[in-house]
């Protein structure tokens, strides 16, 4: 059973028009750069992208926006992106906003076989509209459903041929959660090693959740807000 693919193009070969895809990352940190580049190159259209953010104008999911490859964006925060705002205002792009913790937990729920979860996030706000709510110990919670996607594209630091993944620092973020929520999960890694080379105690995503893995050819790792101290 071989999970290893040569490059991004081959790993995403069956992502077609209208696919629902999750993309890991927070801002531009820990995003599947090589998969995004391959989606741009493949010119697939009408994608529904589920990702915490929508990239910036010329990087990350912003590249797919610029090429008008998205039908719908599901995210928690979509600032810092002028093209996004333009497509939103003209109605070219459909947008669904979900509280960040709800988005994360709905992905995890999928990977944990839990059909729904309860969260207080959004109670009393427009996020609660049309949703079932319920009291527990005197506090109100919304019932939110598990979130699955056709494909989950995640980025890890290290991976092995069995599909095990280790993330680096805050580049972990949504990646392990979305890795669990893909009908097909495609992981791109900075370093790909043979099974047995990673310490089994340090794995963040066990290989059972990962269907395809490849070594990304280049990582630009753009910084969104470079801040330094004196």
């Amino acid at each position, binding site marked *: 059973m071989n999970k290893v693919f040569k490059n991004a193009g081959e790993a995403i070969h069956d992502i077609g028009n209208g696919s629902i895809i999750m993309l890991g990352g927070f801002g531009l940190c820990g995003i599947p750069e090589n998969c995004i580049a391959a989606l741009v190159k493949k010119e697939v259209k009408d994608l529904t992208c589920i990702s915490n953010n929508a990239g910036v104008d010329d990087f990350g999911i912003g590249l797919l926006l610029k090429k008008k490859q998205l039908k719908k964006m599901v*995210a928690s925060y979509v600032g810092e992106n002028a093209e996004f705002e333009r497509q939103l205002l003209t109605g070219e792009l459909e947008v669904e906003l979900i509280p960040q913790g709800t988005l994360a937990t709905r992905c995890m729920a999928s990977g944990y076989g839990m059909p729904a979860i309860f969260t207080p996030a959004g109670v009393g706000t427009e996020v609660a509209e049309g949703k079932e709510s319920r009291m527990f110990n005197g506090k109100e919670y919304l019932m939110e459903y598990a979130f699955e996607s056709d494909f989950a594209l995640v980025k890890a630091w290290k991976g092995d041929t069995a599909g095990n993944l280790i993330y680096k620092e*805050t580049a972990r973020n949504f990646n392990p959660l979305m890795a669990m929520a893909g009908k097909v999960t495609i992981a791109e890694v900075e370093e790909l090693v043979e099974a047995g080379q990673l310490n089994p105690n340090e794995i963040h995503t066990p290989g059972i959740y990962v269907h395809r893995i490849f070594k990304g050819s280049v990582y630009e790792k753009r910084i969104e807000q470079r801040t330094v101290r004196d």
Partner: protein
Amino acid sequence: MLDKNQIAQRIAKELKDGYYVNLGIGIPTLVANFIPEGITVTLQSENGLLGMGPFPLAGEEDPDLINAGKQTITTLPGSAFFDSAMSFGMIRAGKVDLTVLGAMEVSENGDIASWKIPGKMVKGMGGAMDLVASAKNITVAMMHTNPKGESKLLKKCNLPLTGIKCVKKIVTNLAVIEVTENGFHLLERAPGVSVEEIQNKTEGNLIIEGEIPEMNL
């Protein structure tokens, strides 16, 4: 009247030894610069870090190490990384002792609006809805009035809400206010600011009991 740094400085006085604290973007971030000496406060960044340190030195920025505002940061000894589900898990479970957030409006019953101006701005709620619905101790850091001079402390919020009945305390450029069952309870005045001015700039019900002390920074 306080400037942004002084608002942060005043909020920092609420910190206690051993606190885990989540600081929002903007003024709240500045609170980290005023942590009192002699106490240990651990900063949580909801993108997956406990033990956030200061910004890096130039040349030492790490693109894999950012805070929830997407700024490059560092870690302190004893830090830990985790995924976004665990991050909001610990927030929902009440493990974070204090959350400091900015706001566009706060109402006298503790509702907060901070994420959307219909027809003008829709950046999304990010983690704010999770934070305000979960944290046991929500403090808002903001200017008392908006750029047009209108009060941001209202009877009822006009903008779409981020959360309901959740704000416990508000620190503005003019005052420290506790949100009580009966409305905004004025606790302290900024140096040189009169109770009258605060009253004039507070649309919601302001409760003034006895002498209101000037705050001590």
